[in-house]
């Protein structure tokens, strides 16, 4: 009985021993893994980040976001990446996307593009719907992890939007439209590939297509909004 206490004993750290001796040395696998190895003493279980300079705090989060952006380009299923989810990246990407996609709603122009709020809603409600779907089908990924992955994988589409904007600075012609199509298609396929590299492994094998299809639909809608944005 004494060896079975690891599940239901109220302890704050993950160590298998139930001793009350103070832990010293490097941190175990609990807690944020991007925190530098700060030696613990007996009273605090997590290193105190309250006293560090603000630059360190900001740089740590920026580095975490940057690492994830890098992993979107070189996608591989990594459990540690999924565990340290954050929603900074999706927020930045969504805001950028919505700002760039915004139509000019002044009275003089004829552009009826989506408003900022519409893009925002489509993005977040879409991500929530896709994540809920993955969870309801029996996937073992947590809600915010999946939203984190979906949000970060919008990065290739954002880059193709920037490319399209640059192309639109030139004159409009059919050839340039086809170039824009190809750019958006490339971004779409990269986004889908990157997100399924993370998400598909969490589904049972006979339902993988059911979980991947809403991801494709989500990115397809975003890429349609990008393609139909004509500056």
């Amino acid at each position: 009985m004494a060896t079975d206490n690891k599940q239901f004993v109220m302890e704050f750290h993950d160590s298998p021993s139930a001793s009350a001796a103070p832990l010293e040395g490097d941190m175990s696998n609990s807690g944020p893994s991007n925190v530098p190895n700060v030696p613990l003493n007996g009273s605090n279980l997590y290193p105190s980040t309250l006293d560090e300079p603000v630059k360190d705090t900001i740089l740590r989060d920026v580095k975490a976001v940057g690492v994830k952006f890098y992993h979107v380009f070189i996608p591989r299923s990594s459990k540690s990446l999924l565990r340290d989810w954050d929603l900074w990246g999706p927020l930045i990407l969504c805001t950028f996307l919505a700002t760039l996609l915004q139509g000019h709603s002044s009275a003089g122009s004829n552009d009826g593009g989506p408003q900022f709020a519409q893009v925002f809603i489509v993005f977040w409600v879409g991500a929530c719907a896709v994540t809920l779907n993955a969870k309801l089908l029996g996937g073992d990924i947590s809600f915010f992890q999946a939203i984190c992955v979906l949000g970060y994988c919008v990065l290739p589409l954002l880059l193709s939007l920037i490319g399209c904007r640059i192309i639109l600075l030139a004159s409009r012609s059919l050839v340039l439209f086809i170039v824009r199509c190809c750019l958006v298609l490339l971004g779409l396929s990269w986004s889908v590939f990157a997100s399924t590299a993370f998400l598909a492994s969490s589904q049972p094998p006979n339902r993988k297509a059911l979980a991947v299809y809403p991801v494709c639909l989500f990115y397809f809608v975003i890429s349609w909004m990008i393609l139909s944005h004509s500056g």
Partner: protein
Amino acid sequence: MARSFKDVEYTKVDLNSPHKEFPARDTSVGLDDGDEDDDVHYDRPGSTAGDRAKLIRDGGADGEDGETTEEAAKKPSVLSMAYYQQFFDVDTNQVGKRILSSFVPRPNRNLVSDDIRHSPDLYGPFWVCTTLVFVTAIAGNLADYFQTSAAGGNYVWVYDFRKVTFAATAIYLYWWLVPLLLWAVTWWRQVPEKYAYLELLCLYGYSLSIYIPVSVLCVIQLAAVQWALILLAMALSGTVLALSLWPSVSSGERRTAVGLLTAAMLLHAALAVGFKLYFFHVTSGGGGSASSPATPAYSGRTSATTRAAATTRKTPSG
């Protein structure tokens, strides 16, 4: 085996190993190790031990006890994820098979009793409806673009988000309101073999699936082609719908059965025709309707009077 409480600092309850002296508590949290004894699986609700276990498990909240299957003995609460997971219990090939048989009418097959009844799901209907919303809105945009650029107008491509909201409202309302009305009428009329609401939802959701490729094809700017496609889709999916609904409604009174079936077919036709007229109308005047700016249907939401607003709903005269 029994400890006094002063020997330990806190009580440790290990629910993973079977406690022989607390048989009811083993089943109360539903932890299934796979090697539990048979006497802790209470699947007959009549037994008193089973009732006690169920009471402990559900807190007495679970009242209805119609089924005697094992799933009923472990019914999850409405607030848990497991409750909703039972509606998504399908595999890829099941969904594909259901979609396929929703527009291929076969006289002896009933979509509900053959395919759906044993495990109705909400995955297929929901994603079919969502896909249809976006595909119809996008195809409607494309159709407008081709129409006005063929008419020679200097059309700046716009993305009319209002089409998406209109399509979403129409499709989702049709998807859950019509089965609700159907179910309510069969319940009111006490039709003996009425379908459950979930099965009707499933049936109606899958029956919309043929409109997805039809919407894409309706981008072709020929009125004859568009009407032919719409009528074909209506006929196919309407037949499957009728074949599935008839065994159920015909078990009641004849008048109710005929009335219900007619109403269902009429609503199905109305949806298809309404979509064709709103999203894909080809005017015979050659761009007369598209180049004149009409007042937007929603005032105060967007201040732009776009050219796309010219395609708000009006029936073509031709």
